[in-house]
């Protein structure tokens, strides 16, 4: 199986007429992803990579039965583009852009929840089900089909993990970049039930980091609802307090909220296996798969 994206995905690319949009649309097509159309307001009627471009998501959805959208739009247009996709009832919306205003994400997070839409990102590499489809900009060559599910706030730590897994011939079922921002569209807790339910996934890798409470919430969920083994890495144990570490979300409050220690403690108590590095993730994986 796998989830979010696979052979049944009918993907549209919002912002396909931009430089990044067209480049990554091509990459996704190369990966045999079923990209069905592009959307750029004002560019309706044109063609990019042989794909029709529409002014609205709705038209793309109706003409091509699209069920997923990936957004390659600048952060200041992200709100409008994601809003349109969510309101049109696209069931998976993947946002890539970094530097999305927090207040925008605050609204989009809840809008997506209310409308039953899976919103992934922003500040994310996207979603990939290796060998099937991808919606995002990740370098797909380092991913291989297998039975480890990965969800990660960090792109580089995820890439590194996938790269090291490849050397050991361990592949992935689905890899989800929940993104490095303060307010993600979907959190670890939102993704976990999918991994738990997916028969292809045998082990879950969670790459978290300092800041926020997503790892703590995930720990609580894992304790009560997850039967599969979970390997967790929390980056940033030794990061200074009250300083954003590059990801807008990776910041420990002056009062210590969001520290790596607390996250690891709770994950350990929930039965997760704590890895100290990406190499360590793979070492543990080798004992499990």
């Amino acid at each position, binding site marked *: 199986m796998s989830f979010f994206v696979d052979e049944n995905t009918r993907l549209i690319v919002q912002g396909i007429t931009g430089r990044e949009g067209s480049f990554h649309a091509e990459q996704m097509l190369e990966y045999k992803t079923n990209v069905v159309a592009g959307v750029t307001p004002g560019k309706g009627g044109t063609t990019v990579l042989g794909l029709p471009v529409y002014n609205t998501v709705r038209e793309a959805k109706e003409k091509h039965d699209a069920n997923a959208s990936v957004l390659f739009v600048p*952060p*200041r247009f992200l709100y409008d583009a994601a809003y349109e996709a969510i309101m049109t009832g696209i069931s998976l919306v993947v946002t890539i852009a970094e*530097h*999305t*205003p*927090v*207040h925008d*994400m*605050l*609204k989009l*997070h*809840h*809008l997506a929840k209310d409308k039953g839409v899976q919103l992934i990102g922003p500040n994310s590499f996207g979603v990939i089900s290796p060998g099937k489809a991808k919606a995002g900009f*990740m*370098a797909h*060559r*380092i991913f291989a089909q297998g039975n480890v599910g990965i969800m*990660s*706030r*960090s*792109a*580089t*730590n*995820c*890439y*590194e993990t996938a*790269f090291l897994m490849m050397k050991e011939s361990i592949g992935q079922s689905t890899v989800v970049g929940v993104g*490095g921002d*303060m*307010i993600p569209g979907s959190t670890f807790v939102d993704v976990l039930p999918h991994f738990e339910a997916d028969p292809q996934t045998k082990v879950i890798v969670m*790459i978290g*980091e*300092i*800041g*926020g*409470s997503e790892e703590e*919430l995930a720990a609580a969920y894992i304790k009560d609802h997850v039967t599969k083994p979970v390997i967790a890495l929390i*980056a*940033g*144990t*030794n*990061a*200074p307090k009250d*300083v954003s*570490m*590059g*990801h*807008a*979300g*990776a910041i420990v409050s002056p*009062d210590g909220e*969001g520290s790596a220690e607390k996250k690891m403690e709770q994950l350990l108590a929930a039965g997760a296996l704590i890895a*100290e*590095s*990406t*190499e360590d993730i793979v070492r543990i994986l080798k004992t499990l798969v």
Partner: protein
Amino acid sequence: MKLLEYQAHAVFHEYGLPSINGFTATTVDELKEIDGKLPYPVVIKAQVQTGGRGKAGGIQFAENREELLKKGEQVLTMSIKDLPVDKVFVTPKVSVKKEMYLSFTMDRRAKLGILIFSPEGGMEINEIAEATPEKVAKVLLPAGDKLDDFIVQYAADTTGLDPELVPEFKNFCRTLHTVFLQHDCLLAEINPLVLTEDGRLMALDGKVDIDDNALEKHPEIRTMQDEMTENKLVLEARGFDFLYIPIKDSGEIAIVSNGSGMIMSSIDLIAKAGMDCTCALDLGGGATADRIQEALRIVASNPKAQTIFINIFGGITRCDEIARGIQGSLSFIKDKRMVVRLEGTNKEQGLEIIRGLGSGMELVDGLYEGVDALAKGKKL
């Protein structure tokens, strides 16, 4: 971006939020100009981006011109928590009947705005919450642009705010909430929110932290950024769209990498091996030779950085580009130790170039090996 107190007041005034008026001064001459514009006694407050000003002597009262100049100069020449005080904010001394606390901030757990209110103020909110938890209301705000009346009413009711103050308090909250939304604040805090002797609510001190990702919408705030007391290398790096993060004063290692997660992982493993980093620089995407050169120049100008650890892993980053960047930086990194890990496209070509640069370069394969090299001084 955290505003200085006087900048926060300027934002409040813009929205018509009742807030204290005052004047700033950076020199004794400017202090002289303030004399006569405000009724004595006045308050002189150091404008630095840190808490605990009061305890450090950064808040002084002056009864007359003489005191204003003397104490003003005193504050202007002090440093608070290593931050030199470049500016003071001078305001009238207000007769206060009651100090309260009010803020709007983000609740990351619920992914909602949150109103925090206490009819007790003056202290930090976590101190208030520890002392009298029943007097602190934390109320999540439904997603949307409206501050619902019932939210504010609830905050007032559950903390026992005098019902006579509720109507004005509601207005005050609505205005501060508008600041919070329209100025894209991560935090809009008023502490103390005071009830003056003549029965009005007023912001006596304010903290405003604005979402960096929204500064594009607020050009007037961007201009304030230059004024802020900030690390020069951070500013220089920002000019190239790099993120420079000072880490530990006692550290000797500088990390150059391409990604927040990778940087945190590097710091963690280095710390675990008993070493300390002084700084890290995140190249972001698209690391060309030119950009690598600029990045290395910036970290090399930090005298604490004895060793530079270059840790590059990029799906589409070309390692030969990186290597050429290092090659071009030899002049300013010559006295530094260099540990280099390259992974990605054209890795072999990149390694070839590095090997050609001589024994100053230590090449490693992977993060663990890099940390080992840093620890052991292992050479290629």
